[in-house]
C-alpha cells in the first residue's frame, strides 16, 4: 500500500511566521502535489512536482512556495503566514503512467492566529 505521511496533523502558527509543511511518500512516486481544502471550495491545487528539484504552479500558488530536494519528500512553505491561509492542507503522490490515481496523506489542519 502507498503511504503518504504528513508530518503534523494539527498546527497553530502566528501571522507573519514562516511555516513549513512536510510530506513524505514511500513508493518512489515521481509526482507529488499540495492541495488545500476549504468548505464549499473542494480541493484546490497549490503546487506540484514531477521530479526532484522541479516544481510547477497550480491554481492558487500565491503566498506559497515548495521544495523538492529528494524524490520522496515535498515541502510546502508559507513565506509569511496570513489568517486566510488557515485551512486543511493535503499532500498527494502518484506514479507516472496511464490512468494512475493520486494517493493522499491524512492532511494537516493549519490555523493561523
Amino acid at each position, binding site marked *: 500500500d502507498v503511504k503518504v505521511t504528513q508530518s503534523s496533523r494539527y498546527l497553530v502558527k502566528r501571522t507573519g511566521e514562516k511555516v513549513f509543511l512536510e510530506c513524505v511518500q514511500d513508493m518512489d512516486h515521481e509526482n507529488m502535489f499540495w*492541495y488545500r481544502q476549504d468548505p*464549499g471550495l473542494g480541493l*484546490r491545487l497549490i503546487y506540484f512536482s514531477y521530479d526532484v528539484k522541479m516544481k510547477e504552479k497550480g491554481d492558487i500558488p500565491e503566498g506559497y512556495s515548495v521544495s523538492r530536494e529528494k524524490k520522496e519528500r515535498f515541502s510546502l512553505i508559507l513565506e509569511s503566514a496570513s489568517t486566510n491561509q488557515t485551512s486543511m492542507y*493535503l499532500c498527494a503522490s502518484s506514479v507516472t503512467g496511464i490512468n494512475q*490515481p*493520486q494517493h*493522499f*496523506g491524512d492532511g494537516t489542519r493549519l490555523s493561523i492566529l
Partner: protein
Amino acid sequence: DQQVKQNSPSLSVQEGRISILNCDYTNSMFDYFLWYKKYPAEGPTFLISISSIKDKNEDGRFTVFLNKSAKHLSLHIVPSQPGDSAVYFCASRKKSSGDKLTFGTGTRLAVRP
C-alpha cells in the same frame, strides 16, 4: 471558472437503497475521471475511476457511469451502507496536463440506518 461541478452539496439516503452522486464537467479535453471518498480528519481515498473510452466501470457496490455527450458522470452505490457516509469528490484529468487533477467541490453523503 469551475470546470468540475458537483451541484448537490449533500445527499441523504436510507441504508440498503441506492445512492447516486453526480458530477458535471465543462472541458471536453478531460479524458480520465475519478471518485474519491473522504472521512473527517482523514485524507481522500481513491474509490473508482473511468477512462473516457468507456461509459461504465464497476467495482463491487460502486459503479461509475460516464456520459461524454452530456459531460456528466455519476457514482452509484448499491446497496448503501452507514459506513459509506462521507464526502465524495469527483476529479478529472486532461491528457495534456500530465497527472494534474481538477476536483469538484464535494457532496456529503449521509446513509441513515
